């Protein structure tokens, strides 16, 4: 069988794409992963790589023409394969799987712009791949290969992604060991992950998440001053904190960064994205600070005052919805990292600057409105530190992921979901 070349789904709202140019002509040789054609969607133009090596035939969608996602646009024949008729009426019949009437209905009710972002956010919490329809087998395979489902076209009923679609994307005929992830790496490797932890925490809070992402080599951690191993540096304001952090960020010298921040670190990440728009390509904000005034200062004070695990544990438990979730070792590690009295003193000084009178004295909603970078906010409905409703101040294009039964530590409490969200392109 020749390999089907389909119109890929390159962003979440995409239903159809226009082919701007073919890099390979009918009958010409093409290598797998070589540029095959350029497409344009409502939002972006991009180059699509060849899914296989061979000879290109039966170009069904010419330059300037558009096709629905998942619709075959050409076929690649392996060496020795006999080129016959364009394969399959069956394939051609896939086009109506998104009926024209349904598309019209979608367009008849465009987002009004007045809708609360909550509506989008709540639906987004239902599936980690936000709206992607895929079978369990396809999801399992995609996860093991690190394939982004949102970037695939589905050939199942109503565009559902089947196992075969993921296999086609990874160019394997049978499930292969996870280590063999070269094809998928193409999608992911250009992006570097940079993490920014929250107040009174440290880089160690990301360890489990990074391990699960399997990216030890390409993840960087930024630490706030006076946290973890980073020396204390007095700051007079949130802006100064951002400035300090921006220096650290610039020192990394990274481009194509996916910045992931938690709590205060999320506010910092947002400010960095605003100031470094070319370097930061995506932004994931976990329980972000800086979007509203309220914050649970007693818990902060409790954590700052604790000198040992016994007094720290009750306050740490306030961070999570399920108080049994925090292990003894988690608490011990947190206590150990705060054993140095100088650390506690420095953090208390920072708390008085950032959260005077139990109020978040800084506001990054302006930045959130301003930045163009794709942004996700993850909040737990049971967050006892920062009210999740602050997230409702986000503009409509920001995706909200609101989780029931989750507190202030998404990366610990909903590890699987956070891993899936970070892996998913949008």
């Amino acid at each position, binding site marked *: 069988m020749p390999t089907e070349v389909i119109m890929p789904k390159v962003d979440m709202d995409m239903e159809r794409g226009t082919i701007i140019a073919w890099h390979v002509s009918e009958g010409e040789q093409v290598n797998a992963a070589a540029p095959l054609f350029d497409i344009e969607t409502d939002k972006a133009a991009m180059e699509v790589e060849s899914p296989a090596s061979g000879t290109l035939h039966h170009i069904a969608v010419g330059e300037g023409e558009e096709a629905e996602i998942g619709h075959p646009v050409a076929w690649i024949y392996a060496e020795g394969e006999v080129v016959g008729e364009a394969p399959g009426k069956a394939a051609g019949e896939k086009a109506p799987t998104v009926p024209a009437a349904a598309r019209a209905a979608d367009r008849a009710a465009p987002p009004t712009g007045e809708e609360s972002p909550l509506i989008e956010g709540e639906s987004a919490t239902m599936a980690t791949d936000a709206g992607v329809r895929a079978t*369990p087998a*396809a999801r399992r395979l995609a996860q093991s290969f690190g394939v982004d489902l949102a970037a695939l076209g589905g*050939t199942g*009923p109503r565009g559902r992604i089947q196992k075969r679609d993921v296999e086609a994307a990874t160019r394997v005929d049978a499930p292969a060991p996870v280590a063999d992830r070269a094809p998928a790496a193409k999608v992911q490797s250009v992006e570097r992950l940079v993490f920014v932890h929250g107040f009174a925490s440290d880089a160690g809070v990301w360890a489990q998440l990074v391990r699960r992402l399997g990216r030890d080599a390409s993840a960087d951690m930024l630490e706030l001053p006076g946290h973890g191993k980073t020396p204390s540096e007095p700051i007079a304001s949130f802006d100064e904190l951002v400035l300090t952090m921006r220096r650290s960020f610039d020192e990394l010298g990274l481009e194509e960064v996916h910045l992931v921040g938690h709590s205060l670190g999320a506010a910092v990440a947002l400010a960095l994205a605003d100031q470094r728009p070319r370097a930061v390509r995506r932004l994931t904000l976990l329980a972000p600070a800086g979007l509203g005034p309220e914050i649970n200062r007693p818990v902060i004070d409790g954590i700052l005052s604790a000198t040992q695990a016994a007094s720290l544990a009750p306050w740490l438990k306030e961070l999570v919805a399920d108080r049994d979730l925090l292990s003894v070792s988690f608490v011990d590690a947190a206590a150990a990292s705060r054993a140095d009295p100088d650390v506690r003193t420095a953090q208390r000084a920072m708390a008085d600057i950032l959260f005077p009178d139990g109020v978040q004295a800084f506001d990054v909603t302006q930045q959130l409105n301003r930045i163009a970078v794709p942004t996700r906010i993850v909040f737990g409905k049971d967050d006892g530190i920062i009210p999740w409703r602050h997230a409702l101040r986000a503009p409509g294009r920001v995706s909200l992921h609101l989780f029931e039964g989750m507190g202030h530590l998404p990366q610990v409490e909903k590890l699987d979901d956070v891993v899936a969200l970070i892996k998913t392109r949008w």
Partner: protein
Amino acid sequence: MNAHATITAHEATRELSYAEAIREAMDIALSEDERVVLMGEDIGVYGGAFQVTGDLIHKYGEGRVLDTPISELGGAGVAVGAAMTGLRPIFEFQFSDFATLAMEQIVNQAAKVRYMLGGAVSVPVVMRFPAGSGTGAAAQHSQSLEAWLAHVPGLKVVQPSTPHDAKGLLLAALDDPDPVMIFEHKLLYKTKGTVPEGHYITPIGKAAVRREGSDLTIVATSIMVQKALEAANVLAAEGIAAEVIDLRTIRPIDRETVLASVRKTGRLITVYEGVKTLGIGAEVSAMVAESDAFDYLDAPIVRLGGAECPIPYNPVLEKAAVPQVDDVVAAARAVHAGRV
């Protein structure tokens, strides 16, 4: 005489009908174990409503092959009591539909006595239920009520689909310390198959893979196993390799065999004659959905079961009310082609 705990190899086999295989099992049990007695309406001189018991009364006499009065409740009660006090009764219902009359003895007594008496007494009774549609016997004599009894902890429920298993499961049931309900499809009585001579058992709680395949799994019970196998033949000609699992026991269900198959094929169809909703198919589907095998599903699960109506007398409608070979083929094609 309950020493036959394992299946032993039998070189001597021959073709027997399903009914003959059951009769042979009862014959062997009667001759090997003096505690075994047969009880039921018209099983004596008449030989049973479906002639399964045949002439055993002449071989073993009225003391061991007992005609009971026309009271299922009374007959089942005597059988349960006899089992509690040391016998190994095999009680035959004329039609499984009449289990409704004996529910007190089956559900409240047989299933619970061992539990309620702290294990002091067990109820090793075997009950046989001629079941299913297809004989033009209309709504009150054609039902498939096996899921009713499978819902009761304390009972074991089996549905042999071949002469081999009809004999082996009956002998296994006699070895079991607890009540075992055997549902025999009436249309299977005349079907033939290879049956070993002598005593052997087919283990309760163990499904059989009747045909291996890699494209989809069909889990079937009783007569639907035959239909699934016929469907698999049709599908094979189209290049679709269906794996057919004969559940054989519906309580306790053989989880591992089903899950292993679904992990392999990624697609599941269940076929059973009982009413579709709240039936065996729902249990098998839920079992898969609740397990790690869920992650291997590449299509929604499809259930093929009986229509939501009493079994009609009209022969055309009677046939239409339960899954047929064509239905299995059509469902398998749709699942395989990704149309569901």
